[in-house]
């Protein structure tokens, strides 16, 4: 639309993001607390091999997958709610997941009978169950998905209430404070191959569904009435979109904790690069989210090596910083004729 800022073809952007991700993954397998030598020694040193193959690679790929899930969820949320401020945590999944973790930690700490089950389910399972239950609660409160505004409000309310309940548990049981804090900061460092496979599997399923539903998102940009008049089955598609949104967000949150801002920033970054329909939008947002979290993860490992920064802190700084710069740049260029 504006001739000034050059828009690229979606294919070019997609390919460059893939290349960027591949480069990030390669770099991610090479850097960490012990530096490049693990990579060099991996062939003849068992521990170096284990560090590269079983720690760095899965966590790097995992960061990419989690970022992609969040980016995809962000694009879906912004399309579904027709609101550029929407993010994947909008339907209460984040606070649901925190509540799940808080409950699990509180039970885990004191009750010996509960631990058997919880060890098997783990905090990851608790977070996922919490996120999904929160979304269900939101849907129940909003009495379905038909009213966007009601859904949004219900999501906000569920988010606040469940968040407060999680804080209450933390207050009653200060020993869960540490675990909770770790979850809230978000971290990619505890992911193994199983998490990776799980996340990529879910990502694939979500992408297929999102791709299939993207026409409705396109129609929705014209307004709900227009979409309806085009004869699109809005109601069932909305349910499906919310399900995909919940699944993607819940999976990512369960594996990495609360990673802020990726879901919000990724679609905006994509929009600044290309003007396209939603079929490309969901794919590009996923790739952008993956690249963003990957970059943040790398920085988290490199910046204060051999120690590590919580990756959630960095995503906010990176994504937020870039978004701000983008905003000022558009303003500045927009002022000139």
């Amino acid at each position, binding site marked *: 639309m504006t001739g000034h800022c050059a828009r690229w073809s979606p294919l070019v952007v997609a390919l460059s993001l893939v290349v960027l991700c591949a480069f990030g993954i390669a770099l991610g397998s090479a850097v960490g607390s*012990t530096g490049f030598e693990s990579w060099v020694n991996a062939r003849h040193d068992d521990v170096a091999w284990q560090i590269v193959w*079983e720690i760095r690679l899965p966590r790097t790929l995992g960061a990419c997958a989690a970022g992609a899930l969040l980016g995809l969820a962000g694009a879906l949320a912004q399309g579904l709610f027709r609101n550029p401020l929407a993010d994947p945590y909008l339907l209460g999944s984040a606070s649901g997941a925190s509540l799940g973790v808080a409950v699990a930690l509180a039970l*885990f700490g004191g009750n010996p009978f509960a631990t058997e089950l919880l060890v098997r389910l783990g905090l990851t399972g608790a977070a996922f169950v919490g996120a999904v239950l929160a979304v269900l609660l939101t849907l129940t409160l909003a009495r379905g998905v038909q009213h966007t505004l009601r859904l949004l409000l219900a999501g906000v309310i569920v988010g606040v209430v469940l968040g407060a309940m999680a804080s209450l548990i933390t207050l009653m049981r200060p020993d869960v404070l540490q*675990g909770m804090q770790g979850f809230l900061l978000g971290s990619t460092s505890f992911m*193994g191959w199983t998490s990776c496979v799980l996340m990529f599997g879910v990502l694939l399923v979500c992408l297929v569904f999102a791709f299939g539903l993207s026409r409705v998102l396109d129609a929705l940009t014209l307004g709900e009435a227009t979409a309806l008049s085009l004869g699109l089955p809005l109601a069932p598609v909305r349910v499906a979109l919310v399900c995909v949104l919940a699944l993607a967000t819940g999976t990512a949150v369960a594996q990495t904790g609360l990673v802020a801002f990726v879901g919000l920033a990724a679609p905006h970054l994509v929009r600044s690069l290309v003007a396209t329909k939603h079929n490309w939008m969901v794919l590009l947002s996923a790739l952008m989210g993956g690249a963003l979290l990957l970059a943040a993860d790398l920085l988290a490992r490199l910046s204060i090596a051999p120690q*590590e920064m919580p990756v959630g802190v960095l995503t906010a700084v990176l994504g937020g910083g870039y978004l701000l710069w983008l905003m000022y740049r558009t303003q500045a260029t927009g002022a000139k004729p």
Partner: protein
Amino acid sequence: MRNPLRAVRLVCVGALWLIVSVTHAVVLQDDRHIDVTLSKVPQRIVSLLPSLTETVCELGQCQKLVGVDRYSNWPESIAKLPRMGGGIDPSIESIVALKPDLVLMATSARGAERLQALGLTVLALEPRSHADVQRVMRLVAQALDVPVQDSDRVWRHIDAAVNAAAQSIPAQAKGQRVYFEVSRAPYGAGESSFIGETLQRLGARNILPASLGPFPKINPEFVVRAQPDIIMVGDSNFADMTTRPGWQNMQAMRAQRVCTFKPNESDVLVRAGPRMAEAARLMAKCLTDKASQPKRLER
């Protein structure tokens, strides 16, 4: 005919002895209620909790530590050891790189499952009370193949030293009502915490009853209403205390019956480990010193 038989028996006994001595299979149940099998005596240990680091060293096994968490700072001999992050953010990669054969960590810490999945042996322990300190010390001793008598002897020394600290307090200093602040939220140390247990053994009364739990988060007003005779607090938290509404006029604050502890003393006080005796002496000194001051400041 008898000789070959005897030889066979000898060989059998010898082999059995060899198996027993080499394998040294110990099965311990840790605080997650998980059975941890140690097939041989650990030689390279990573500890991710300061009190466990101190316990290992107190059992004379300090030389086996190859890495500790960033908060472990005692004894001084571990100062040069590589740091593996903290309880919230243990660095999985650097731990694996050290090739430890035993990782000691708190049950509340993260990453235990991940470390186990990578093939490391993890013993998760969380000392919360005096009895726990003794129990954890025994478990660590068993894990490190230190005779249990040794760990019990260490414990008896600690126990006796706490008793001695209690006896050093003059009679008029007993029965004072104490508020011990752990962190500035504010969280206090209740009767059921290990700090509370020590205070009880020193003959002090705690303003936070056991019913509130070990480390309750309290309303600052609760302390003002309870009017403790003595306040114990780390000196980094003390500055904040004076600014709380209503606290300036508390008798303990006005009469300066507040013991502030330096950071290294605070470390001693808040860790449920072998330095509990030293912690008891610090608290006993505080109780004795403050008892000689007037309870109220006359104007």
